[in-house]
């Protein structure tokens, strides 16, 4: 879920053109499914659409090296990797599906708002996934309907993503707070914030112009107050957005906002501006990501590895994660066997190590150990992700239209006291009903 933050610069005309493409599409045939056997027929061109490519420098470097290695392993294979800017990919992907024509592999966001919203156009991969692979890789819920542990897989998850709080130990010490902070309740977090404020320190850095911080607050709030079972109910449409469980999920952010722990210009600033504030020491806490953007890799160089602390939400479940992204094979892919071979290769132990080394992508394979030189926060997070307490991050349950549309827009207004939370929840439910993917 780091990608939404790159939506800073807009669509341009690509989106409008895509409308025309969509309009030109229509029904049509779909090609037949998997043939099984990972080395069945690995040759020819593999076309990949990739929204990380040419966007994240570390990822780009890693993937280029891995692609080259794969081509070397399989003479006769050429990989044609196309960068699809994250800002446009919804429109471009949608156009490809309606036209029944496109690449062999598509990178996808995890969960209901990403890969699962396209599931009707994607290959089910269970027959291809070996027991060994199923076992060693985690975050399968991100690509499985209902966010279930078992079921049809519409992609292969890569990396570990989630939300977590970072704090500046130096500023905490200045306010007389513990430098190994972990609140037991939301109230404790708020009083810590008030104490910082009293000491003349900005408690939270942040920017919520896009409303994207709300995703994190919602996710952490929901996992804190509810059970993984409830997350599944929300994903499957069995729980309404007007449910009390959802109301509770929004409370922590509303209370934090009301307590005045955020800067006054929070809604005029983007999330990225918020991260910058925190990196500059202009805030004691930030709601950040596990990896790639607004994370330890950004903050450590700025405020020092020793000075950067992590704390988890209080309550039921403290660790919630989902995949960083997923690789999927659309039904219309022309070279499915080779595509699968590439996905398999990229999810190997060796590839995972390369991804961490070059891009800081946290490995979702149990057999990968981080090097000793890895930052303490990375090691801590990977360990947390392997704990039995870990749950699926609830924001994976949000449908695209709720996630990208109604929730940020409505909550932005709620937080500024312009509309009621009740009304916002009703609007979310309305959107969810209209746009449910069956």
């Amino acid at each position, binding site marked *: 879920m780091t990608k939404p933050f790159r939506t800073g610069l807009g669509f341009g005309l690509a989106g409008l053109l895509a409308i025309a493409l969509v309009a030109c599409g229509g029904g049509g045939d779909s090609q037949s499914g998997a043939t099984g056997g990972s080395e069945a027929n690995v040759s020819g061109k593999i076309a990949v659409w990739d929204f990380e490519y040419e966007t994240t420098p570390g990822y780009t470097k890693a993937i280029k090296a891995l692609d080259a290695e794969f081509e070397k392993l399989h003479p006769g294979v050429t990989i044609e990797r196309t960068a699809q800017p994250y800002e446009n990919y919804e*429109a471009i992907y949608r156009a490809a599906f309606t036209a029944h024509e496109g690449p062999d592999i598509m990178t996808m966001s995890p969960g209901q708002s990403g890969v699962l919203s396209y599931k*009707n156009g994607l290959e089910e991969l269970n027959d291809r996934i070996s027991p060994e692979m199923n076992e060693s890789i985690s975050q399968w819920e991100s690509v499985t309907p209902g966010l279930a542990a078992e079921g049809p897989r519409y992609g292969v998850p890569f990396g570990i993503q989630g939300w977590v709080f970072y704090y500046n130990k130096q500023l905490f010490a200045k306010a007389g707070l513990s430098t190994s902070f972990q609140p037991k309740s939301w109230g404790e977090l708020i009083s810590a914030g008030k104490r910082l404020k009293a000491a003349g320190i900005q408690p939270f850095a942040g920017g919520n112009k896009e409303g994207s911080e709300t995703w994190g607050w919602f996710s952490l709030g929901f996992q804190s107050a509810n059970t993984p079972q409830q997350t599944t109910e929300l994903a499957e449409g069995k729980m309404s957005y007007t449910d009390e469980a959802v109301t509770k999920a929004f409370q922590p952010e509303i209370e934090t906002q009301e307590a005045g722990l955020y800067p006054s210009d929070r809604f*005029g600033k983007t999330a990225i501006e918020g991260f910058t504030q925190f990196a500059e020491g202009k805030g004691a806490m930030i709601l950040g990501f596990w990896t790639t953007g607004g994370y330890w890799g950004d903050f450590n160089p700025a405020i020092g590895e020793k000075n950067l602390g992590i704390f988890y939400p209080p309550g039921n479940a403290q660790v919630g994660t989902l995949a960083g992204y997923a690789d999927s094979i659309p039904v219309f892919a022309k070279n499915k066997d080779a595509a699968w071979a590439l996905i398999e290769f990229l999810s190997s132990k060796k590839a995972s190590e390369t991804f961490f080394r070059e891009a800081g992508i946290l490995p979702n394979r149990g057999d990968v150990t981080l090097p000793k030189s890895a930052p303490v926060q990375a090691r801590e997070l990977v360990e947390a992700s392997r704990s039995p307490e870990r749950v699926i991050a609830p924001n994976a349950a949000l449908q695209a239209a709720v996630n990208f549309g109604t929730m940020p827009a409505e909550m932005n207004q709620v937080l500024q006291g312009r509309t009621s939370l009740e009304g916002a929840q009703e609007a979310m439910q309305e959107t969810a009903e209209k746009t449910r993917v069956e």
Partner: protein
Amino acid sequence: MTASSGAGSVGPRTGRRHGARHSGRGLTRWLFLLPALVLLAVLIVYPIGDAIRLAFTSWDGFSAPHSIGLSNFEDLLKDKRFKESLLHNLAIVVAIPIWIAVPYAVACGIHTKVAGWRFFRLVFFLPVVLSPVVLGAYYGIVLAESGPLNGALRSVGLGGLAHEWLNDPALTLPVVIGIIIWATFGVGVLIFLAGLANLDEEIVEAAQVDGASRWQIQRHVVFWQLLPVIEFWTVIIVIASFTAFFPLIYTLTKGGPGTATFTVDFDLYSEAFTSGRLGYASAIGVVMMFIILVTCGGLVALLRWRRS
């Protein structure tokens, strides 16, 4: 070919030959038009037809669309966001007098060849060649709560005028419209300059001799002569208000705060690509097309009627 033999014949023309010659020319005409007609059909007629067809279906883009009659349109009538978006488009259209007055005034200024008019013409046109994304990002920075504009206001003691320009539901739409006007008025200036260049100078002179002041000449003579240009520009703006400002609004406000700057094209985009409701989005497109046709048709009819 039939055509060349027909057209080339210079001999005595009997009625029959004459007829043959005409049909030959008719066929040639169609043959020459064919490529254009095919392109037109493929690129315009078919997509419009298909969009209209899809407007009566429910379609997620994966499975085949299935017909649901007027459901989409019935839903549109109840769709709060759609109605709100439509209202925002209306606000843009209501701002048309400003949209006309600004480039008109600037063009008149440039037309009198004030010192440095070439420079001004260039400067005023500059925003037009900038990408809307660049403009959006630029104004995002300038109008930020702690951005340069508010900074400037505060530094001259006008802090009371500082606002959250892009986060105040009451302010954002007017601000966005203002920026759009700024970004597009260079085109208007060029169009009005062309109109002024074609002005019948003799009529202006006649008014001068008749005793009209500069302002009276503008009001009673130049304005009326530029009326077709104004009409043209208005139609362009109306169409653009529904179709062309999406990228700028997207980068500037993403339709926010809340849905305060959602426009119909914005709504269409989000229904199609965020919600995946392609049939519903097609219905929005059809309604949008209908509104544009009716508005522009009405506008042209009104102006024609006024002129005759």
